[in-house]
C-alpha cells in the first residue's frame, strides 16, 4: 500500500488519556514516545487499549526540526 505520508512507524500503545472530545494516545515507537490526538470515536472504532499494536503516520510537512 502506497501513501503520501513519508513517515510510517509501527508501535505499541502505552497510555490513553481520555478527554471530553479527544483522547491523547501515547505510542512507544522503538523506545520513542509519540503522542497522537484522536477523537474518542476513533479510540472506540480502532478498539485500541494499552498494549495494542498500531501504526503511527506523520506527514513530513508536520515534522519540526530544532537544533541545540
Amino acid at each position, binding site marked *: *500500500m*502506497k*501513501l*503520501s*505520508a*513519508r513517515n510510517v512507524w509501527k508501535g505499541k500503545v502505552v497510555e490513553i488519556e481520555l478527554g*471530553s*472530545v*479527544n483522547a491523547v*494516545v501515547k505510542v512507544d515507537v522503538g523506545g520513542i514516545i509519540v503522542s*497522537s*490526538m*484522536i*477523537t*474518542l*470515536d*476513533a*479510540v472506540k*472504532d*480502532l478498539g485500541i487499549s494499552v498494549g495494542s499494536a498500531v*501504526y503511527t*503516520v506523520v*506527514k*513530513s*510537512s*508536520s515534522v519540526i526540526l530544532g537544533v541545540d
Partner: protein
Amino acid sequence: MSAPKPADIVVEGVRKSYRGKTVVDVDRLELKAGRTLGLLGPSGSGKSTLLSMIGLLERPDAGTVSVDGREVNATDRQTRMSMAAAFQRPYLFKGTVGDNVAYGLRLRRVPASDTRDRVEAVLTRVGLQGWQDRSALTLSGGEAQRVALARALVLEPRILLLDEPLASLDPVMKWRLARDFARILREEGKTTLYVTHDQDEVLAIADDVAIMRQGRVVASGTGDQVFGLPADDWIAGFLGMEPSIRGRVLDVKDGVARVDCGGVTLYAVAPVAPGAEVLLGVRPEDVVLFEADAIVPLTSARNKIQAVVVQIDPSGSTYRVVIERGPVRIAAKISRSALVDLRLSEGTPVQALFKATAVRVAST
C-alpha cells in the same frame, strides 16, 4: 530597557477617498496590545493608506483611531511620539548611519550620551554593530532596511508601523530579515502593524492577520483562523487556497460533527449544532493521500474520501495536489517523493485521509 506598556488600537468607521475614489472604508479593525497584526492585500487595496491613518500621518475623511480607548489625531503630540514607522523603500537622511538612527531621539531631546548608547545598542540588535560612522547613502538595500528599522526601534515606541519593509529586497536577504524581524518583534512585545502583500511573510511574522480588498477589511482574526478557512472565494483565491466547502451539520456526537457537503460526508471537531449551515476547510499539511485501490486499514482519521486529482502545482520544494469529489475540493501538500511514489497526475483517482481535528469549521 524599560519598555512601556504596549498599546491597544481600535480603528472605527475610517474612510478616506482621493479624487472621489474611496481607497479605505474600514468598519472596524483592532490591533491587540503587544501583538503583531499582519495586514495583507493586493496592491491598491488601501493597506498603506490605512497604515498612514493609524500612524496619524494622514487624516481620515471620517471615523476614528483610538489608542487605549481614547480617540487620537495628528495634533496629539504625545501619541505621535509613541509611534514609529519604517516604509518599503528605506529612505535615509544624508549623513551617517548614526545620525539616521539618532534622528528621532534628537527630536525628543534625549541627552547626547544617552543617544550614543541607545544607537549603539539598537544597531547591535539589527546586526549592524559599530556601523554608526558609515555614510547612510553607501548602504545596500538590506543594510538600509536594517537602519530604517533601527531608526524606528531605537525610539522604543509603543506602536510600530511597518509598511512592506521587505518588499524591495532580494529573496535571500528578505528571509534573513523576516526571521530577524520576527525575533525582534517577539522580544520587543510591541503593538505592531505589519503591512505586506506576501502571505509567507505574514505567516513568519504576524500573530493576527487582516486581509484588505478594495479598501475594506474582508477577513481578520488569528493567523490560524484566517488562513485555516477562507471566508469567501476571493480570499481563498488571494491566499492561493481552495474555496471553503459549504455544508450542513447532520448530527453531533461526542463533539464530532457529521457534515453533509453535497453528498460527501465529512467529520469535524467543532462546537456546532445539528442543522447549521457551515463552511469547512482542511489544511493541506494535514491531508494524507493513498493510492485509489489501496485497502486503507482502520485508522483514527475520521475522514476518508475517494477523489480525483484535478490539479498539481509545485509550491516551493513540495507539491500542492488538489483533489475533487463532487463539490468538495481539498488540497494536499505532499513531498516530491510522495508524488513520484503514488504516480500522481491530473485525473488520477486517489483516497484522501485526514483527521476530524484537521477540519476547520465556521458558521455562516
